[in-house]
């Protein structure tokens, strides 16, 4: 169709600088599961942003007169043993979980990418040192490493975020290193050199953008893992501190009421599951859309 119009009116086709990501977006849009995942994610983001508007009860405090009320008109998701409204806590908890998910992943990506780029591009001893460092980190079960890091830094939500960021560095570092190894052999790197471009510029302008796709995919899936890890640390009492409405912490605090008041566990459990599923579905879709070779 386009070619015929081109023949008739060649002048009228205007220069349309379509960015490359637009094409990627088009491909994602066609994938139903990815869009479903994205809508779950957006739903939780929206809830997090609108938290104060959505809730009519405070998420913190002690209200002895309304402990362990089952879900109903008054309290949609019921209340816990402290009399706190579970709906409010989950809505505010969305902020915490997403915040931890995003920022820990961004942190690991920044550090991991820098290390991976250096290792892949410069090779030799830089590669040996960085790769061995990754190997050592991967030798520990990641949650154990996170526990150790939090134990050193002291238990708090922010330190949990730092720990989660650190333990995920090798995942991204190794991923980008392997990409850099193949991208740096591409002919356009040689041609960039031949026009007199410096190594640093080649690294950030040519190699990084061409290596980043799997990182974006892995990062999206990684948010789900990070949320789970944060919940696990919270459950162990190493992340969120008493009072903070972190979903994992909520599970831990309520596990003794499983038989008497199952709603205290069910709703935070569902919340964790839904966000994780959302991010995973979106991440899988991203991979299919951005990296056709992986299919």
């Amino acid at each position, binding site marked *: 169709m386009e070619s015929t119009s081109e023949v008739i009116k*060649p002048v009228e*086709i*205007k*220069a*349309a*600088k379509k960015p*490359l990501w637009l094409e990627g977006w088009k491909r994602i849009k066609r994938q139903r599961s990815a869009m479903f995942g994205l809508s779950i994610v957006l739903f939780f983001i929206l809830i997090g942003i609108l938290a104060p508007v959505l809730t009519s009860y405070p998420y913190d405090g002690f209200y002895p007169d309304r402990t362990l009320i089952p879900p109903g008109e008054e309290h949609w998701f019921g209340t816990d043993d402290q009399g706190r409204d579970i709906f409010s806590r989950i809505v505010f908890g969305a902020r915490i979980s997403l915040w931890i998910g995003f920022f820990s992943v961004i942190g690991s990506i920044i550090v991991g990418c820098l290390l991976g780029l250096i290792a892949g591009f410069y*090779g*030799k001893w830089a590669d040996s040192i960085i790769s061995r460092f990754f190997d050592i980190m991967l030798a520990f079960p990641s949650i154990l490493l996170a526990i150790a890091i939090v134990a050193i830094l002291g238990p708090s939500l922010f330190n949990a975020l730092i720990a989660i960021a650190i333990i995920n560095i090798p995942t991204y570092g190794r991923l980008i290193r392997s990409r850099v190894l193949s991208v740096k052999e*591409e*002919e*356009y790197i*040689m*041609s*960039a*050199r*031949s*026009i*007199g*471009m*410096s190594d640093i510029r080649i690294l950030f302008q*040519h190699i990084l*953008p*061409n290596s980043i796709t799997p990182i974006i995919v892995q990062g999206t899936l990684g948010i789900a893992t990070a949320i789970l890890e944060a919940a696990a640390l919270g459950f162990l009492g190493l992340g969120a501190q008493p009072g903070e409405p972190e979903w994992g912490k909520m599970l831990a605090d309520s596990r003794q009421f499983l038989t008497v008041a199952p709603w205290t566990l069910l709703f935070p459990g569902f919340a964790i599951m839904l966000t994780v599923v959302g991010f995973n579905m979106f991440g899988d879709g991203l991979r299919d859309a951005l990296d056709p070779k992986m299919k």
Partner: protein
Amino acid sequence: MKPLLTVSGLKTHFFTDEGVVRSVDGVSFIVSEGETIGIVGESGSGKSVTALSIMNLLPYKKGKIVEGDIMFQDQSLVGLKPKEMRAIRGNDIAMIFQEPMTSLNPGYTIGDQISEAIRLHKKVRRKEARKRSVDLLTEVGIPNAERMVDEYPHKLSGGMRQRVMIAMALACDPKLLIADEPTTALDVTIQAQILELIQKLKNDSNTSILMITHDLAVVSEVCDRVIVMYAGRVVEEASVKEIFESPSHPYTKGLIDSIPSIDVEVEWLKTIKGNVPIPSQMPTGCKFSPRCQYAMERCTKEEPELTRFESGQKSRCFLAKEVKDETTIIRSQELEVALSD
């Protein structure tokens, strides 16, 4: 003519796990201003490595210039600091590569990539660089350059991409353009177009061109002088006319003979028997002797020097004169036959 590039006694070796590979072993030649020189040879003859040595783009830490000098204008390029070399690359010496399909970054528009080549060396605004990119694209024969400047490489055919690569190489009006098999990856009609373009550039500007190729047709099309390389050495150097009419080295003779003729019908095309020797089994004496139909005992023991004829033709063969005489006679006979037909 003033010499622009003087390569003297260049030795580029590769240090691999299997030992030292002498890819370029004592190569000397001069490229004068405005001249087009062809470097011809089989795969593995060291012609591309010569080009990469000039550009100082040898594979990181594996390949090294161990001896010899490369003078560009009045400056030695050997042992230049990376920063100084970068100022020359793309600005004074530019290069076109073999694979146009992969030589452009898929993530940026062609305009961005040409602008970048300009802005690396010249302090111009983004807008001006873009305008110059459009001019360059027009110059290399890209239709509708105003629009194409915003296209991504994957929308372009191989021939178009090679034109873009040429535009990029010309971005800063280089004094020397190194073309490493610029037409090898293209189909024949496109090859002709690209050669025509290079021919046009040659006529329009004073840019010297170093054309690396294994295709003698390309040489006859655009070059003034030809250097024939074999196993890391220059075996013959001559004007294009002499190369085709009176080659004085058996290897050159073999290359010319293997071109199919349009006048003579033959059942089998002529070939040169054997292969380029692998680095670990380099013959002593003349490197071409095992494949040479003229080989004598002396050839296997000592290596001939480059001998120079009066016309400036040079040949690395003990029998240079005899071969030249023979080929001259054969050519004139062939011409007679062709004329009498």
